[in-house]
């Protein structure tokens, strides 16, 4: 079955929601494809109290005249103007009348694919209950009980405090929140926050909620200990080390953009982010990009960029330009954020030779030392050849060795073999989930 759209929006986080709502309000035929069980992306994932802006945009999205493929992902773009989508639970087959895959025809494609956490390997990081900061947060929103559990939060970035506050509000005990950045490095970001009452209030509120937790800069985990699961974490600060018993370690080193689909489509990247013009168009005509893949900048910037792109696609160019001028403030926040989250080089030394770097294929650091580059590593050690397609180990390898992933091949996400069949083969009507 083939759907026809003026614009297909990939991702229903803030940028995608804003773009879809804006485009639909302009009268365009809009399709939205989102990988998660419900809209909101990561930062507005349901299952927790959401800020007012989130509730407003989600409500507008729910009321908007758009076609939703919720719990679907784009796996390939077999020809210009056609995207191949597949249902997440395609194989569980409880509803046999629904198709597993479908083709979407679009005049414009908007990539609002968001970002993922950066994970760095250290001894014990593969133990069960070591998760990302956003990772544990998502799991809790997905029903994992956390009340009464001890959680160490570590890594870098504003996500840590937000996650710690959410977990604390749910009854978790948080002995420590550790950011690898120094206060000096964070200073430009803190200044930005001080200038924005909304952010300042939010930050203060998070810190109040976590007031029982030690907040430590220049601090990071050097190992996680446990048998079949995590029992304790060893932290380091200024050369001193100490262990903290805990049930979970929520550890993520800021965010990396999800640019795989953009790369597959031939969009130009700059410093690892999707390059766009003022109106969020990429180097490929009719492909647009908004939100974190253009630069990690948080919710406000994502909302702005989604609206700009939505207006631009609808031909409302002067309105789009007007909004685009408003990006300046949000962009300087993004720059300060980028500087504050730069990683301490000492983090490169955490992994030992037998620390696993590629979790899909269990490739240890020792096997990667001396490899000529990402391609060489993939070919000769299988690093990055597993189902995560290098999303986890690739970001680590880039920090550890400076390797950049080269070309992206389809499927951009693991997909059923049948998704390579020509669309005429789908005899079923896709089920549209709201």
């Amino acid at each position, binding site marked *: 079955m083939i759907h026809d759209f003026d614009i297909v929006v990939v991702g229903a986080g803030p940028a995608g929601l804003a773009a879809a709502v804006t485009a639909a309000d302009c009268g365009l035929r809009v399709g939205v494809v989102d990988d998660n069980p419900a809209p909101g992306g990561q930062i507005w994932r349901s299952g927790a109290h959401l800020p007012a802006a989130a509730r407003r945009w989600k409500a507008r999205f729910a009321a908007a005249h758009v076609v939703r493929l919720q719990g679907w992902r784009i796996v390939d773009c077999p020809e210009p103007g056609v995207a191949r989508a597949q249902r997440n639970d395609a194989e569980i087959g409880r509803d046999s009348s629904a198709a597993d895959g479908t083709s979407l025809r679009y005049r414009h494609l908007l990539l609002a694919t968001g970002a993922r956490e950066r994970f760095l390997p250290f001894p014990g990081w593969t133990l069960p209950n070591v998760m990302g900061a956003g990772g544990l947060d998502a799991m809790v929103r997905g029903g994992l009980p956390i009340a009464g559990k001890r959680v160490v939060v570590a890594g870098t970035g504003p996500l840590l405090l937000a996650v710690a506050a959410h977990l604390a509000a749910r009854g978790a005990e948080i002995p420590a929140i550790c950011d690898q950045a120094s206060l000096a490095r964070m200073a430009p970001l803190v200044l930005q926050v001080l200038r924005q009452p909304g952010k300042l209030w939010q930050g203060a509120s998070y810190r109040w909620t976590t007031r029982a937790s030690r907040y430590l800069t220049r601090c990071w985990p050097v190992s996680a200990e446990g048998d079949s699961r995590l029992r304790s974490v060893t932290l380091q600060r200024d050369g001193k080390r100490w262990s903290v018993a805990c049930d979970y370690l929520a550890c993520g080193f800021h965010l990396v953009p999800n640019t795989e689909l953009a790369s597959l489509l031939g969009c130009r990247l700059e410093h690892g982010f999707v390059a766009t013009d003022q109106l969020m168009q990429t180097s490929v005509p009719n492909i647009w990009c908004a939100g974190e893949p253009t630069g990690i900048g948080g919710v406000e910037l994502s909302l702005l960029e989604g609206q700009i792109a939505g207006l631009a696609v609808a031909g409302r160019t002067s309105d789009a330009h007007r909004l685009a001028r408003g990006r300046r403030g949000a962009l300087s926040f993004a720059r300060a954020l980028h500087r504050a989250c730069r990683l301490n080089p000492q983090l490169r030394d955490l992994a030992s030779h037998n620390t696993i770097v590629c979790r899909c294929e269990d490739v240890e650091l020792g096997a990667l030392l001396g490899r000529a580059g990402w391609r060489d590593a993939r070919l*000769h050690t299988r690093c990055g050849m597993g189902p995560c397609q290098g999303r986890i180990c690739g970001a680590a390898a880039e920090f550890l060795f400076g390797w950049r992933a080269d070309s992206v091949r*389809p499927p951009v996400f693991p997909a059923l073999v049948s998704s*390579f*069949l020509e669309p005429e083969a789908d005899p079923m009507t896709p089920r549209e989930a709201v």
Partner: protein
Amino acid sequence: MTRVWDVVVVGAGIVGAACARECAARGLRTALIDAAGIGGGATAAGMGHIVAMDDSPAQLALTRWSQQLWRELSSQLPPEAEFECRGTLWVAADEEEMLEVRRKQEVYASAGVATEILDARALAEAEPQLRKGLAGALLVPSDAVLYPPAAAAFLIRDAIGMGAQMLPPRRVAAAALGKVRLEDGSELQAIRIVNACGAGAVSLLPDLPIRRRRGHLVITDRYPGFIRHQLVELGYLKSAHSIATDSVAFNVQPRQTGQLLIGSSREFGAEDTTINHALLGAMVRRAESYLPGIGRLQAIRAWTGFRAATPDKLPLIGPWPGDESLCLATGHEGLGITTSLATGKLVAAEITGETPGIPAEPYFPARFLDEGRVAQAQTLYREAAHG
């Protein structure tokens, strides 16, 4: 004083690796060079199927001998080479193809390759995932599968252990008349030069009757036991035969990891590695027609690679007329992994003047040149030497 190598092998895919190893084993001062590291090209892209192929007597002789060599080497291969004697099942869809199965058995028998005919029931037992209604198959138990980049890396390590040198990666701009000129302007001098550049061989020898023949592959997530043997349709040879049209054929391999490698496709004229979705779709449909459950498996990656194809489906192994220093080891089409070891032995025999394990003439590059062309080639090379 400039060092003169006995042999410089250009191209460090599995064929070049095998050549360097055989030369080093005979005490020849051997260098191996490749612009992009080791085990790239078709070695990195293709299926590691070691198969006795009976398209012609010469092809059967080469693949059978080489398959034997792989078996003899297998105990030395490291675990990451994933060598497994899985066997091939040539699947017959109907009674007409069963006739072909019987014919094939005789041909293999005449070359000393043991096979077994499976009827419909035995086939279903051997491979439950195959669709109902197939007529049977020919089992070739001595066929094997491996992971080619790791095998190539092993051959090179072995070669280095015997004195060969792997030179730092640089592109070779020209290789003729005992001189290998690198793109940085430096030069290697060699008594013999082996061109093992696969689909790229034409860049060094524009006269070569080699065309790039692209193929697609898909690899799945891990489903151990889904199939046990390498499964190939009898029509595979028809696909490999046809030189005019794009074609697909059912050819699926179980990897040691439990992943499935799904092939195969052939097309001429493709310039880059962008997926041809129409052809890929046809290839998957063909695979699904034999393995109905394969569509439900998760695919992790799809990619393309280039085979070096010659007009008569035999490789170019041996001296190149007009240049006494040049020895070719290329044009292996879809049989480079299988015939790499035999190619290495033929090349080493050619260089040292030994008698090779099988007659080498059917693979001589000279078979494509008439006398006039040979003289022309000689002139061109003389000119190049002074240019």
